[in-house]
């Protein structure tokens, strides 16, 4: 655990000619379509993992562009119409003086999505190239990406709640903009991208190294 060099002596299911289930850890001695214990489709490694990672990530990137360009919130107040993009919403919160909440939204809607694109791309590239970078660090990065990605949905929920809460009669209304849908899609696509990544491939680099 603390000594990365020890990993050379570890036997994996794949090298022993066995197939380990990624859902429940059951080991199978022959190729089967589904795991005998949990019934999940059984593969030694996720098939076409990197292709799927890149495909979902590109979809996520494409939908992330309109999410930032178009308005997230459309506020009508006494006949005047204000449109707020994601960044605009953060700036408005800061002008209100709510720095803590501005920081939460800034992280959830801007730092996490962009960080996630970079992290997944780095993981996918590190697996594709033969360079062996420390497995534990990359494994930790993968866990963080998997854990934190869903939190980007905050802004979509905020828009939903605001639109439900504030329905002033004629005086003011808040309506969700088209960016809400593209942002939600972008988050979902990047979550699928992260789920398509096979963490076992991080460690396979070590196997290739010492066999």
């Amino acid at each position, binding site marked *: 655990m603390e000594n990365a060099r020890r990993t050379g002596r570890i036997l994996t299911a794949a090298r022993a*000619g066995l197939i380990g289930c990624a859902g429940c850890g059951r080991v199978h001695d022959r190729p089967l379509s589904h795991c005998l214990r949990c019934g999940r489709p059984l593969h030694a490694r996720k098939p076409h993992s990197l292709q799927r990672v890149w495909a979902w990530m590109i979809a996520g990137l494409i939908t992330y562009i309109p999410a930032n360009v178009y308005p997230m919130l459309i506020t009508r107040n006494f006949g005047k119409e204000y449109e707020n993009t994601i960044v605009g919403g953060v700036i408005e919160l800061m002008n209100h003086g709510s720095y803590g909440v501005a920081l939460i939204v800034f992280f959830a809607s801007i730092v996490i999505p962009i960080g996630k694109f970079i992290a997944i791309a780095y993981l996918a590239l590190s697996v594709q190239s033969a360079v062996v970078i420390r497995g534990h660090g990359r494994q930790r990065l993968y866990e963080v990406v998997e854990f934190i990605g869903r939190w980007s949905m905050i802004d979509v929920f905020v828009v939903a709640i605001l639109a439900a809460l504030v329905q002033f009669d004629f005086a003011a209304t808040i309506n969700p903009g088209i960016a809400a849908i593209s942002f939600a899609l972008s988050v979902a696509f990047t979550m699928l991208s992260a789920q398509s990544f096979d963490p076992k491939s991080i460690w396979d680099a070590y196997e290739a190294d010492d066999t």
Partner: protein
Amino acid sequence: MEALAPPQPDHATRDPRGLIACPTCDALHRDMSVAAGARARCTRCGTVLMAPRAGAMTQIVMLAATSAGLMVAAGFFPLPRPFAPGITTHSSLFDAVLAFSSGVLLPLSFATAALIVALPLLRLLAIVYTLAPMALGWRPAPGAVAAFRLAQGLKPWAMAEIFIVGVVVALVKVAGLVTVTLGPAFWAFVALVAVTTLKDTVMCELTIWKTLEERAAS
């Protein structure tokens, strides 16, 4: 905390049933019973493989049932309610969900409903369905394996706890416009998040899979 021993190379090819492959990094370990309260970690990547607890099944069923009850409460109680002259109050959870119900944004309405209500509830029901017979010491219910696989797959898509943070952010945003008090639904949701987190900590998936397999065979 203990680490499972790696198998001898010749042992591996003989009996795959005595082995566990780490679901994260594929390293083989000898499968052995882990004492209640102890944790078995993968020797290579450090992922917790097994962390059984005494009476965990009963605890999980109780916690999941509590979560489901709170979920229903959260749906029907009013959400944080804004007070200002001339406001029509749209304030239950379902109103928040229906906020996107106009035109192009309609699909988003369904997605929001799924992420904050339908999927978390489905996941809880699947967990109760799988584990309730096990907690009572019965044979697994028909389809229990499929139900628990569903619960495992739904985990990242059940976003009730993220919704809570969304409520807080939304409240801060409207604080300048209207006065807002927190309704019982908000507190039901806070309790829901706490109970769900506790349940996920107690639940050891590998142990449950092994128990399911053993009980089905007996």
